[in-house]
């Protein structure tokens, strides 16, 4: 708890944290409102890939896809937060002041976990808000999407932290993250196409992407006969969890053995 307290002391005075959090929350709310009211769309009728169905149980899946795009704000913040420690050399100062090296990593792990939990809670609250605004239904039907949202967030934030610990510079880390999004998409598509398989969907970020698909696109692919073999959900969940653990294990080894 002391570790979280230390991280909170840094966050509460950091304007960037409040700005990025507000952008994430505010824009996510507005965007969902726009999709729900159909003034944000990709086209009319069947050409509109954003479903405006915001009632239970469809809302969880529809909103989850939208949510997946907004996580980038949180990824950027995680990168900045960790890069700052290296820029200000406060990572050294923490150890000098008596923090164990592993606890420095654990503090950031707790920060990532806290942000993932908070973002998921916000997702739930937003879903409940729009869900009840758009009529009744069972809010707990299709609720497993919330679990996928949490796993997706944790994976993306952990990967961002992983990059930041190695690169140590916020600008370069953010660019590398964005580049990696594209690179992984290309490699994933190539593997799936070349080998007619779904193994390309088991790459680090893709494994979580597949948990929050764009439902309309899947329907379209089914209709046009372009449907791809899908990885089973349990496999995607397990692989995502393995990657999250792997980031931690690698960083742990790095922090315990290298000079700061």
């Amino acid at each position, binding site marked *: 708890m*002391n570790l979280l*307290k*230390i991280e909170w*002391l*840094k966050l509460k*005075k*950091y*304007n960037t944290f409040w700005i990025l959090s507000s952008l994430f929350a505010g824009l996510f709310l507005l965007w969902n409102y726009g999709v729900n009211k159909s003034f944000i769309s990709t086209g009319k009728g069947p050409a509109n890939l954003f479903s405006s169905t915001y009632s239970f149980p469809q809302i969880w899946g529809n909103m989850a896809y939208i949510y997946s795009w907004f996580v980038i704000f949180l990824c950027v913040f995680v990168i900045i937060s960790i890069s*700052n420690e290296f820029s*200000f*050399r*406060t990572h*050294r*100062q*923490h*150890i*000098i*002041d*008596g*923090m*164990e*090296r592993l606890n420095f990593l654990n503090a950031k792990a707790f920060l990532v976990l806290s942000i993932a939990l908070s973002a998921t809670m916000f997702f739930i609250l937003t879903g409940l808000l729009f869900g009840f605004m758009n009529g009744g239904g069972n809010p707990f039907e299709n609720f497993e999407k919330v679990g996928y949202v949490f796993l997706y967030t944790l994976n993306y934030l952990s990967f961002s932290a992983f990059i930041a610990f190695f690169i140590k510079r916020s600008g370069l880390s953010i660019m590398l993250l964005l580049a990696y999004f594209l690179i992984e998409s290309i490699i994933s598509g190539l593997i799936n196409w070349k080998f007619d398989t779904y193994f390309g969907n088991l790459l680090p970020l893709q494994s979580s992407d597949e948990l929050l698909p764009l439902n309309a696109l899947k329907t379209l692919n089914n209709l046009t006969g372009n449907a791809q073999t899908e990885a089973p959900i349990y496999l995607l969940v397990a692989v995502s969890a393995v990657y999250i653990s792997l980031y931690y294990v690698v960083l742990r080894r790095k922090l315990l*053995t*290298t*000079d*700061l």
Partner: protein
Amino acid sequence: MKTVLQLQSIEKSYGPVKALKGVSFKVPKGSVFGVLGPNGSGKTTMLGILLDVLKADAGTYHWEDYQDASAARKQIGSLLETPNFYHYMTAYDNLEITATIKERGLDDIDNVLKKVNLFERRHTKFSTFSLGMKQRLAIAGALLGNPDILVLDEPTNGLDPVGIAEIRELIIQLSKQGITIIMASHLLDEVEKVCTDVAILKQGSLLSAGPVIEVLNDDDWIEVGCSDNEALAALLRRHIGLKNIIVHTFVQVSFGNEMDSEALNKYCFENGFILHHIQKRKRSLESKFMEMTK
């Protein structure tokens, strides 16, 4: 004498460069222990290893009276290289983080800020501080919670003469309270004024360690001059009791305790040299240091 810190054969390399080559010494409790050496001698590397920001390739160190190194560091006040704080936070907020990590000193923040004359600026952002103010804040962080041991790397770096004098006085006061202070510094006259013990490093090797009075030794120097200093120097070099000789404007000689000023004056006169200048000088740490590290 009780020891607070023992180093045993510490080695550290940066690629092909061997920064520390098996350094061993003990720091007595309650001492003001100076770590001296030219640039690149390994002082900061050694302190970095003690504070766990660097990993030694070989050797061990042990803080007596503490369970482990992390527990020791929480009780030690440290300043290593540059002041490291969050630029967007105020002096007070930064020290609040330091105190929270150390799990002590939260009620001591105002007090330490007053000691380093930053109390009026406690709610000012670190990014607006001058170099001297940043250094003072780092010293304040080291003083939080009344540590038993202080480890200071160039504590007067960036300070004006008034600030340097204040830090010297602070160190002396803390030493009188029984706090052990380990201090790396280039300012030899400051080290000479405050240190009780000293370790001298050169290119990663320990040249000498021990009480200042032993490392300095008791040799007094006598400075003599006549109309022909070169001939005088040649005469004195032939003296069997000569320990050291330096020829500048005058001839500086050291005979240990074997020859005093009167005896030297008589010896020169008996050999045809009339001295127009003779003065006794206490050997300074600087001259000893320069001689040892050349």
